[in-house]
């Protein structure tokens, strides 16, 4: 592999890693802070992608407006969902959480089938992101992919800032380490959890919306993403946002270069990485909350 190719592959790895981070950040928030194993997280990603499919024709070139609108809708959806279903799960054991969130996957898939059908759909990227940037005559790099990476970075910084630098973030971190004590201090923990859950759903949906024009929109698309996200969350340290970012980039690099150098074995590379890291640091790369 010559040097320019190597650089392009690094770019590919970072881009994949950042998108993974965006989905996984919502999962790590819900998993780490609220202690709920949410298998339905992949479905939120799928819902986001279908939202993009439905909203894109209405918004046209106002792509960023569409992303914001979609996120708001997803947040409202998450807020209601937490109220109706997830708020009953906090005290329960993990098996019950897994059962209920798995049931939600089936419900969402069936609803998707009834409402939108089972066909594969494409989403048009907005006109101002349609072109590509030439990389030394070898290939062009789609402008949209660069935009997606930039959007993921913006969200990563925003998230880091909210959790570590704001009062809301402080309350979230307090609630994560001791639910009862936080309530004792007069903080409405139910509302707080509801907000965190809504935020997590909005992040997953945003990832789905951003992925939709680059990829496509198809039944069952949440499944593969969900597994990778759990890998990212576990490697990064459950509940840690910076850990999730680090882990997502690691997974991106292992997956990309695994495909190039060990095509036949590329499927297992990421899981070997997870096993090695868990042997070395069973709690994951970073601690909760950072």
């Amino acid at each position, binding site marked *: 592999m010559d040097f320019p190719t190597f650089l392009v592959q690094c770019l590919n790895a970072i881009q994949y890693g950042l998108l993974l981070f965006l989905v996984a950040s919502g999962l790590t928030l819900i998993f780490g802070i609220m202690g709920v194993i949410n298998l339905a997280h992949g479905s939120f990603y799928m819902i986001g992608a279908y939202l993009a499919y439905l909203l894109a024709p209405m918004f046209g070139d106002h792509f960023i407006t569409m992303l914001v609108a979609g996120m708001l809708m997803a947040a409202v959806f998450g807020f209601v969902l937490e109220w109706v279903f997830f708020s009953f799960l906090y005290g329960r054991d993990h098996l019950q959480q897994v059962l209920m969130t798995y049931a939600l996957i089936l419900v969402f898939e069936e609803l998707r089938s009834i409402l939108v059908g089972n066909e594969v759909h494409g989403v048009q990227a907005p006109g101002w992101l349609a072109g590509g940037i030439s990389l030394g005559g070898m290939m062009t790099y789609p402008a949209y*992919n660069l935009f997606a990476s930039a959007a993921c970075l913006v969200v990563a910084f925003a998230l880091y800032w909210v959790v570590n630098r704001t009062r809301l973030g402080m309350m979230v971190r307090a609630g994560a380490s001791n639910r009862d004590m936080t309530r004792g201090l007069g903080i409405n923990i139910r509302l707080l959890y509801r907000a965190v859950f809504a935020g997590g759903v909005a992040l997953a949906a945003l990832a789905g919306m951003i992925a939709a024009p680059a990829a496509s929109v198809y039944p069952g698309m949440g499944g593969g993403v969900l597994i990778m996200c759990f890998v990212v969350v576990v490697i990064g340290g459950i509940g840690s946002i910076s850990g999730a970012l680090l882990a997502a980039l690691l997974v991106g690099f292992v997956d990309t270069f695994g495909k190039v150098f060990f095509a036949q074995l590329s499927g297992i590379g990421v899981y070997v990485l997870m096993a090695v890291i868990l042997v070395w640091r069973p709690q994951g790369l970073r601690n909760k909350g950072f």
Partner: protein
Amino acid sequence: MHLPATLRTTAAAVALFAAGLAGAQNNAPIKVGFMLPATGTYANLGTMIENGFKLHVAEQGGKLGGREVQYFKVDDESDPAKASDNVNKLIKRDKVDVLVGTVHSGVAATMAKAAKESKTILIVPNAGADVITGPMCGPNIFRTSFSNWQPAFAMGKVAAERGHKKVVTVTWNYAAGQESVKGFTEAFEKGGGKVTGNLTLPFPNVEFQALLTQIAADKPDAVYVFFAGGGAVKFVKDYVAAGLNKTIPLYGAGFLTDGTLEAQGAAAQGLFTTLHYADKLDTPRDNAFRAAFTKAYHADADVYAVQGYDAAQLLATGLKSVGGDFDGKRDAMLKAMHTATIDSPRGKFTLSAANNPVQDIYLRQVVGTDNVVKGVAIKALADPARGCRPF
């Protein structure tokens, strides 16, 4: 003989009753068990196959060979792990006479195994795994679709004829993809070309960017791919977004552009693929079929609907030849099916020694949302059926 009158009447009555019973048995509905995906990625394909099958039965007045058809259904979920349980529900619980299924090759292989053991007739209306009409072939196992080898082999020939010398292949690392790449390589290298690289990624991973960069660095004359569904959409779009289509033509087995064109949009325009069916064949047979399908289901027919329709045609041929006497003349019926000429919307086809269609493979080009036929890549192409012991 002087039998008492009462006894005579009784005997007559018994004889009559027995005859009636036998008659009833012959007229009992024939049980067709659909094992198709009703959920998951392939749900749509399952519906098309079932609708195609039922369309032909309806055209025959709801009867095949004079017998009513009773349907049983199991959702196979395209899950090979559940395939054995699912197929046994149909064979043992519902006691179906004929199995029809399925889309996923791994599931279909399990069905073939179960059909072989229980001697139930199996008609495969899609799954292209070479093994089904290869090592697993049998007198009661039929296929009305294709083998993965067929469209791929035809594309290999076309690519060589177009003067390409160096080709890189890309596919998912699973049976269908590997068989397809093998078929392509066989014909392409026979035609004087050389496959210089086989890129793979795990099924159903759709992160293609690393492989595209690899292709850009390798600079082959052309690229051959096997993808379907969501993966096909994403690959074609990514390929164009990377600007590779300007210098390196992309070829694929037909599934790359079947049922995906609306989603692929502009990215797919002009792509060449090979398959046993195409849009705008414009034969009276195909036009009539498409019109009937649209009328019945308010949807456009596709290759999957054709394969389901032909599965019903094949079964109808067998049942007609023995006047519906499914149990009594089973061997004769299997023979009639084996030697049948099916008047398919795709064009007439016969079955090979291993019961796989011997059919024309079309070269198609994407124009708008149609895979428009550009000619026949190979006429009456028969799968080599490697590993099939003659029966």
